[in-house]
């Protein structure tokens, strides 16, 4: 019980650890709720589900309109992740609704949403709340007459072989995805100003979103690479969300089928879907790219204890340890671009931290000649990584009255002058008083 209550209090940054203690009956498993329109998805998408299971996740399959659905019980979440493979559901069963899903995300849990041509308003509004706008035309699909996947049915250009992937080892893994990713579904877009959402898989410049079965009467609203096929969103509390307009992208059929881009001659025996989806799901479920910063320390050079206050022009050492979650344990995070700011309304010192390759980052600098309440700030925001933002307040005081120099060399003429005056006055008084 005690562990249970602590886990509520702690933040997402420790989530992977906590999850092991989250459900007392199977301590090592992370529990994921998978909502399906139909239990047949269980077999048609079995490769994806099995890969999750093999990575230690405990999947709980439920129908989306199951009347007993609940994400939390007695104020505690039963699951750590939610997979919505139920594009057509108009209304969830049980206690689950839009607000419950958003609360689930806002309390730091991960979400995968897959839509398709039959996507309901509920699914679309979940996506909208996460910053992703699906095409408003309910019958529209992504069509690409140039980069479609060569298939048996000639003229079906809605099956796309997309290869415009985001350049990020963190999100998609170190191994390059060679084969194009098969996609068939609806388009969505992301507001450019939205700094939290990312396009992971974009459509090619020749794609557009329209109803494939009718003639194009007006210019399509979504065209070209503005169309996103797969997007992710990392919320401010580091909850990760994946949204795609294609449920088929996870399917066994797409995983195993061969793919040939209409434009290129190369035919791949196996599409890139499996690798893409698996790697992306690793990122979504925090097996990669999750950082934590611990042991923020600072002290004067030559001392070990952390002072309550610095003096201007003190020399100080600052250190912080940064680790990345590897899925099983915290590994040292190695980078050469972590910076610390000594900040009071604006950074007075901005210094790149040097690392010892074991997770310890360190810098030493001189406190500026300005007093005030400063902060040590580490703002580390990199694509794909959870954002590190830590600040530690520390006041800087001016010199004490006895820390100034007692005698200044340049003032010696003045000292001389004052003593000469005193001596002169003494002699004058003596002469004046006794020289009669």
């Amino acid at each position: 019980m005690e562990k249970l209550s602590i886990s509520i209090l702690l933040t997402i940054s420790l989530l992977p650890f906590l999850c092991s203690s989250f459900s007392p009956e199977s301590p090592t498993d992370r529990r994921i709720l998978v909502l399906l329109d139909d239990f047949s998805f269980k077999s048609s998408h079995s490769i994806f589900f099995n890969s999750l299971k093999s990575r230690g996740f405990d999947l709980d399959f439920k129908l989306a309109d199951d009347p007993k659905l609940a994400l939390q019980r007695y104020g505690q979440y039963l699951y750590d992740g939610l997979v919505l493979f139920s594009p057509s559901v108009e209304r969830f069963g049980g206690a689950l609704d839009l607000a419950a899903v958003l609360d689930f995300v806002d309390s730091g849990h991960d979400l995968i949403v897959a839509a398709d041509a039959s996507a309901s308003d509920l699914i679309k509004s979940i996506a909208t709340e996460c910053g992703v706008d699906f095409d408003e035309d309910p019958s529209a699909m992504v069509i690409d007459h140039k980069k479609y996947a060569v298939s048996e049915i000639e003229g079906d250009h809605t099956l796309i072989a997309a290869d415009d992937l985001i350049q990020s080892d963190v999100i998609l893994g170190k191994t390059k995805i060679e084969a194009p990713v098969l996609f068939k579904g609806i388009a969505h877009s992301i507001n450019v100003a939205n700094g939290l959402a990312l396009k992971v898989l974009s459509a090619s410049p020749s794609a557009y979103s329209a109803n494939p079965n009718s003639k194009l009467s007006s210019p399509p609203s979504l065209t070209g690479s503005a169309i996103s096929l797969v997007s992710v969103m990392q919320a401010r509390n580091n909850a990760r969300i994946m949204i795609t307009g294609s449920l088929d992208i996870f399917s066994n059929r797409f995983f195993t089928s061969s793919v040939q881009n209409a434009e290129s001659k190369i035919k791949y025996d196996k599409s890139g879907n499996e690798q893409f989806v698996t790697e992306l799901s690793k990122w979504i479920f925090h097996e990669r790219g999750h950082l934590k910063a611990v042991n923020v320390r600072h002290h004067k050079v030559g001392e070990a204890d952390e002072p309550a206050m610095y003096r201007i022009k003190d020399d100080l050492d600052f250190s912080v340890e940064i680790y990345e979650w590897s899925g099983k344990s915290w590994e040292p995070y190695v980078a050469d671009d972590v910076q610390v700011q000594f900040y009071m309304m604006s950074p007075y010192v901005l210094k790149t931290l040097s690392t010892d390759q074991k997770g310890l980052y360190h810098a030493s600098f001189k406190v500026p000649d300005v007093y005030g309440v400063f902060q040590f700030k580490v703002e580390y925001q990199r694509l794909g990584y959870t954002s590190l933002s830590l600040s530690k307040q520390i006041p800087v005081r001016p010199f004490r009255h006895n820390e100034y120099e007692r005698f200044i060399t340049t003032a010696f003429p003045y000292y001389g002058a004052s003593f000469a005056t005193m001596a002169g006055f003494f002699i004058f008084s003596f002469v004046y008083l006794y020289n009669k």
Partner: protein
Amino acid sequence: MADPENAMGATTLRYAFGNVLSFFILLLIGVLAFSIRLFSVIKYESVIHEFDPYFNYRVTQFLTKNGIYDFWNWFDDRTWYPLGRVIGGTVYPGLTLTAGTLWWILNSLNVPLSVETVCVFTAPIFSAFASWATYLLTKEVKGAGAGLTAAALLAMVPSYISRSVAGSYDNEAVAIFALIFTFYLYIKTLNTGSLFYATLNALAYFYMVCSWGGYTFIINLIPMHVLLCIVTGRYSSRLYIAYAPFVVLGTLLAALVPVVGFNAVMTSEHFASFLVFIIIHVVAFVYYIKGILSPKMFKVAVMLVISVGLAVCCAVMAILIALVASSPTKGWSGRSLSLLDPTYASKYIPIIASVSEHQPPTWPSYFMDINVLAFLVPAGIIACFLPLSDASSFVVLYIVTSVYFSGVMVRLMLVLAPAACIMSGIALSEAFHVFTRSIKFQLPGLLGSSQVDSGDASSSTVVAQNDAGKVEKTEDTAKERPSKKNKKKEKEIVDKPSLKTKIEKRLLVLPLEASIFAILLLVLLGAFYVVHCVWAAAEAYSAPSIVLTSHSPDGGLHVFDDFREAYAWLSHNTEVDDKVASWWDYGYQTTAMANRTVIVDNNTWNNTHIATVGTAMSSPEKAAWEIFNSLDVKYVLVVFGGLVGYPSDDINKFLWMVRIGGGVFPHIKEPDYLRDGHYRIDSQATPTMLNCLMYKLSYYRFVETDGKGFDRVRRTEIGKKHFKLTHFEEVFTTHHWMVRIYKLKPPKNRIRGKAKKLKSKTSTTTSTKRSGANKRNPWH
């Protein structure tokens, strides 16, 4: 010459009796001064008042806890976040050190009083000291009778009471004592020509510099008086002894106070003293030369000296003017400039003009604060001219300048009060003197038996006082005489007694009935004054302003303790390092009572920082949130009087926030908040006004109280009644809604997509659900 000595010998016993009597009267005056200031403790409680006293209290606590060196070097990181404030170098330490010493002495005597108690009672104790100092000063000017009267008047003058009731732990509490005592020592030096008193004078001045920024009044008034004496041909070696050591020692000592430091020689406020210092040396030199040269040679020398002196003076003046002109404010601080040019502050420095005590006073406030003294002062001035001495010319100069300064700034009424008391004391004493004299001289005729000296048997204490006063005065003149070396002076003194006897003879012809009637009238006047002072002390000036009371129609007392409620909430429900933003008025109280970091406080040293807060308060919610967030603010505190009719709330102060904010950030424009030049918050108010943060935080949910949103201070219904806050959330509102505390919401976890049409398309069920979701995440 032998006459006073004879009189002294004959009536030694009577003088001893008079001295003992005046000693007990002084003691009683001290008790009166102390006890009349205890109304606030009896009617309310023993608590620190208002705003600045809370800061002083906090500083005193720090001093008693950490010692004087830590106090001197105190860098306070809990105010003016994130700039911090060097308290030790920016505070006048006199009051704090005084109270700290008192506390230390009491504690080492095993009297376990709390620091707060000592602070509360510092002001009444020092007002007793101030009345005694007034006695000494007036005694030097016009004798002990006038001294006792002046002391009694000062003990209960409302203007001084307003600043020194128990709990009003402010600089003025000790500074008025220091001011009067410095003046006393100056006059004493002037009368005696003693270097001992001159040194004491410099030390008293040092204490004044430690205590209050008003010390510049002394360092300008005394040179003015010296100049006056020189111009009117009253130069004497006593004047030189009174002035020259004072300037040198005083300036050196003043420079020791960290908050003054080099200002003592570098700002224009102090230049007058140096100029007069030069002049008095020139004059002294001239007198010296005149003494050793023959008249013919002297004329030649005068020509030489004047030409050389003029040249030197011109050069010095040119350098000074160039130096002063090179500084942007012409070397004058804003407050001093507004003294000389009363319109200066309201024109250029809104932050000075915004303080109510920096406004010019109204006529009724003179009657309220010095009451009948206002009528007695002219009489006192006339009395000072009969005859004019160095000392009496000083008090005349004091009253004239202080009347001018009080006309510029309400706060300086406090400086006027002692001068008015001294003048009125002189006037009353002289009047009583004349009347009792004439009665006494006519009584023998009526009774037909006793002599002049036996009058004391039937006379009142007033007569005794005046007799004692008269005797002491003659004693003084007797003492003065041998110390005078100046021949010109000697002549004057010889003239004096004959003039005096003439006047006395002329005044003695007042008829007996008229004298008795006049005395009765004067006593009535005094009684009226006493009644007014007691009323002012009990009703007008005792409210601690952190606790308010009101009388309900049925006579019951209703207490509004909202401020302490709010500060207690802050101290119990927020993190220690949380920052609280409010208008600067409440900064000192928040740090002292809630112990939370504030952005700005009543020490208005950084105009830009205050303007930032003013801008945030005048901005729409989102912009305000960004400003506050950039300052790491967690909570915003506003004071709202609309529900209970508390007029000095933030909405009434709001235009100053706009002005101060607009002075630094020009996108805030005052006309945007005014409808046709009128400041209003009803339905005619401008959209900018209705959307600014201050309006929203003040009136959020206000309509829920009475259904209409009727503001009892502005006496109108508010313009915008139903609105929601998106970036702030209400966390605490006190019982009478006088203090409202809001918390800044964190940035929203997710950024919503653009699709808004989707909303209208969705079915009713989902749209209701969405609105529910919006309620929980109202960010956007």
